[in-house]
């Protein structure tokens, strides 16, 4: 529970309430100087409680407290409200805004009740007359007087400041505010003071007023509240705990295979291979064959090699020949056909290229096969009659033999005489003489 005023604020307020000899207008100025606008609400609340609970015993204190309440009213809005209410249309407009409490000074009803002399706080008609004068004429001469200048026992003295003509219509104001009051929740209206007098005996000393007030100046009132049972925690249902199944299934976007007539790898390969035996394949086709063979090397098992096919393959598609021959040579049945076919193949650049690749790519390639192929090469040179073509062919054969020798694939000892004869026969060609020197050096 927080109190409305701090100790020092309460002391300042009480000092103001003691200003009996200061004119009201001057008290008003002091109020403005002492308290900031943020403190005004707390001051008004405190004064209302002090007034209601009988903490203000002296008449001057009560009058000053009423004046401060009046002084802190935003009085302009009160008169605006009075003028507006005369116009029906504006009144309707006003009705829409009536929820906006800022238009209504919150402590005005307290003053109206006192002015109407029907409020339970009011003990004295003098006070109601004083409030009525203030509300009717905020610039009344009465406010130039000080509290002790007024005869607080004689109401007649005040009447002179309150001519009939200028009297405010309290009934109208009261009706308007009762309409507003209807919007205040009933639950806010049932509170009572939280302090109960509980005298133990006639003795005892009174506590300092400020100490007592500290506990009583609060907006909180004692009242019962609607009992609101809180909802209990929702019972966890059977599957509420999340069980995580270990999943290693990686879902990937799908490749649409419906784009072309989907053939199996087998069908595609056979089609391409057949084509390769008869004609030169395009670059992508050759690549496709290589890819299929890389993925499924066993696919070739279903194909049988024939001498003619291999001869054609080597001649027309040397690039893929090596890949195919390599796999064919793993099969005993195809092996001999392959070697025979290769030996019967015409010696060309393509066939030499394939044999060269085979010699380096396949371990344990029979030396006899290589020797026989080299002999074929040498013979092929002799069979060419065109000098230009012959010399070109000799150069190719020399390069081929040199490559075999460099890779130590050729059995030079067994072929030395044949090779030397070939070199001497074509010694006019520089490559052959170079090869001769190489052979000589290797034999040594």
């Amino acid at each position, binding site marked *: 529970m927080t109190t409305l005023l701090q100790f020092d604020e309460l002391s300042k307020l009480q000092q103001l309430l003691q200003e009996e000899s200061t004119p009201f207008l001057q008290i008003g100025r002091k109020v403005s100087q002492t308290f900031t606008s943020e403190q005004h609400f707390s001051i008004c609340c405190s004064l209302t409680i002090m007034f209601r609970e009988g903490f203000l015993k002296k008449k001057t204190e009560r009058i000053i407290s009423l004046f401060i309440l009046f002084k802190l009213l935003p009085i302009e809005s009160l008169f605006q409200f009075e003028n507006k209410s005369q116009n029906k249309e504006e009144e309707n407009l006003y009705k829409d805004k009536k929820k906006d409490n800022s238009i209504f000074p919150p402590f005005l009803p307290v003053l109206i009740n006192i002015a109407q002399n029907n409020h339970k706080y009011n003990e004295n008609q003098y006070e109601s007359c004083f409030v009525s004068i203030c509300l009717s004429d905020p610039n009344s001469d009465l406010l130039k007087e000080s509290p002790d200048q007024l005869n607080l026992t004689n109401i007649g003295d005040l009447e002179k400041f309150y001519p009939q003509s200028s009297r405010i219509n309290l009934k109208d104001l009261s009706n308007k505010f009762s309409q507003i009051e209807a919007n205040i929740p009933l639950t806010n209206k049932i509170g*009572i003071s939280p302090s109960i007098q509980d005298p133990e005996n006639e003795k005892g000393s009174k506590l300092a007023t400020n100490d007592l007030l500290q506990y009583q100046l609060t907006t909180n009132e004692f009242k019962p509240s609607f009992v609101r049972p809180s909802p209990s925690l929702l019972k966890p249902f059977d599957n509420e705990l999340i069980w995580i199944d270990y999943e290693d299934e990686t879902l990937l976007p799908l490749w649409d295979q419906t784009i072309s007539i989907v053939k199996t790898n087998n069908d595609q390969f056979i089609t391409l291979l057949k084509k390769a035996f008869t004609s030169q394949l395009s670059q992508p086709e050759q690549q496709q064959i290589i890819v299929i063979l890389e*993925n499924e090397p066993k696919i070739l098992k279903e194909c049988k090699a024939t001498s003619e096919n291999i001869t054609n393959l080597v001649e027309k598609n040397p690039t893929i020949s090596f890949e195919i021959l390599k796999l064919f040579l793993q099969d005993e049945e195809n092996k001999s056909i392959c070697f025979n076919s290769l030996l019967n193949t015409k010696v060309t650049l393509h066939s030499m290229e394939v044999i060269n690749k085979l010699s380096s790519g396949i371990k344990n390639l029979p030396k006899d096969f290589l020797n026989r192929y080299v002999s074929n090469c040498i013979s092929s040179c002799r069979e060419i009659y065109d000098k230009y073509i012959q010399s070109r062919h000799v150069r190719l054969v020399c390069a081929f033999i040199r490559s075999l020798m460099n890779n130590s694939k050729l059995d030079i000892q067994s072929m030395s005489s044949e090779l030397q004869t070939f070199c001497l026969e074509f010694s006019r060609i520089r490559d052959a003489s170079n090869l001769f020197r190489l052979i000589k050096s290797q034999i040594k």
Partner: protein
Amino acid sequence: MNLAHQLFTQKKYNEASQQISTLIEKTSGNDKKIVKLKSHLALCEYMKTGRTQPEEYLETLNGIVKQFSKDLTTADLGYVIYNQAIVNYQLKRYQRAATQLESLRKNVGSLDPYLGFEATYLLLKLSIENNHISQANELISLIENQFFQTNTKNNQKNSGLQTRNQNKNRQRLLMLKIKLSLCCSEHNKAELFVNQLQEIKNRNLQQQKENQIEKINEKTLLIENLSLNMMRCKIENSKMNLEEAKNNLWGLSKTMENSKTEERNHSNFWSSFYNNLGCVELKNNKPGSALFYFKKALLANSQICKNEKTVNNFSKDKRSEIMYNTGLCLILLEKPQNAFQFFQGALVCLYNRPRVWIRLAECCLLEHFRLTKDKEQVGSLNRLVKKVIGQGKYRTVILQTGIGPNDGLNINEESVSFEDIVSSNVGDLQFHGIPVQSMSLDYASKAASNSILISEKLLKIINNQNQKTSTTSNNNKNSKIDENNKTQKNEFKIKKENENGIEKQKNKEKTNTNHTNLNTLKNGKTNIDLDNLSKNDQSLKQDLEHGLLLFSYISLCCQNPVTALSSAKMLLNYNPDPYREYLANLYAAEACCLLNNPNLAKEYISQSLQKRRYQVEKLLKGPKNLKIMSPKEYESNWSDCVTLLNLAFVLILQNDIQTASEYIKQASRMFPNSPLVLLSCVYLELSNGNNQNALELLKSCHAFYPLENSQK
């Protein structure tokens, strides 16, 4: 094209995309072919990045769909749509993925069988994960009829599905059937499927042995899942044998440790293992031990987060699920603040589950109760008197004031700075980037309203599906449901509270709004039929009812009687169980009091009084195995006493002090020492000007003896 495919399967994505680009250049005029080539190109580019740029891939696919959707059918764009769905699924945008797959399912007859199966399978997986049981059952029968029938007609159609694939797909389908059975608590059925799966597995192993294929000893995904699911069967089974399950789990972990395959390094295995162990412990009523395992699961899971940010790793990250379990554990351990943080983490992926929002609201409320109890001075008799001041004849008793059920948690949310978000610390674990909102009643209110909106939406969908199956379906109906779903989607806006780096990917799916749509709450009417729900969907009904109850309660705490009344009225329209009906009537009555309508309040209170008390008490006992915070107010016949006190309160508002005092006397006979009853009695005496009687009452109950003692 086949070459491109070969290159693609060899993971030579650069060469494959070059090949496709060449083909695109050569192709003209054939839209179907261009779509396929473009989608392949996009796929190659996506795979080239190691699947780290899913957004770019999705954008390309969206572009393709946009460009060609006018001229081509859904079937023509099937693969593109499926690939969109799969990426969305991996990014955990389940709603969007489901919508895309649903469009494929409608055209399943015209799709390539391979695609048709995969799309239906994924949709089934999604349905099970989202607990859409009826839809899942429909999809299973669709798959079985469409793809696994052995009659000759279908054989022709299924020519695309190779036998080997078909076997694999049968196993995949069985796995999902097990999951579904477990979701529906049909344990016997699940065990049956597990046995079937085991048989298939044994047969395959036998075949492998016979064929002397090398992979005999390889531990496959299937065995792992099989073991886990078998264990789950045992856990969920009514003849629950938790110890056995635990031993099995440990046994499995040892097998994994000893396994020479790379799987031993898989963080996702360990995260799922510890998580499941935690579940077993919690089921075994050992929340402390469960919490230990959940934390270990989170640590194992954090390894996945540290890995490369690929879509695959993202989909393996089960942080949200483990965090939800941890939150549940913490809430049961009465640690709402920690639980709140974990539930917020869980929201990242589970934001469309109403239960998460309910738990979040509950965390706020538990914290609110704790703070209220700390502040609540009327909680005990000796605090009814705040202070006694003065001595002798100046002695004055000051009564306690201004404390009520609203004085707990702050109403307004506090903004959390970026630094706070980054360094959000959950226990001894740090999770960078998990947003943490502050606990407040405002947040609780939003969470409760989100739970209402989500469960309402899901129930509407279920209702629509039920209607669809019960009546003769026609083509028009499907489109109507679609429209309904679309409008619901527009209405249904979840306030997104959480966002972090990774989760930004899902931003578009979560609709951002600062205001929850409360139109449905305002009129307090409902158009959902909750009577014909399956056993499984009952939990959704519970979520809806509890969400409404929480929302009504929180609205009262936030001093918003209008929404409190409307949500309580809405809840009453759903014919809730007696416990919720009792509370809803009370909340509605309090709201009426605040709205200056004591007559209506009286009606609501008398309705709550009519409810048979034993029903309420039965429900309030809570589950046997789990420790539930049950407010003391609900003990014994306290509910009647509360009703009497509230009736007296309404009569006080109506200035009928005499009748009010009769009710209070009745309450006082039931609970003479209750501070709330005493407070009402003292108030009545004071309002009647009987200060002395009030003081005697206070003294007779020793209301301020401790104060006097302390003064002396």
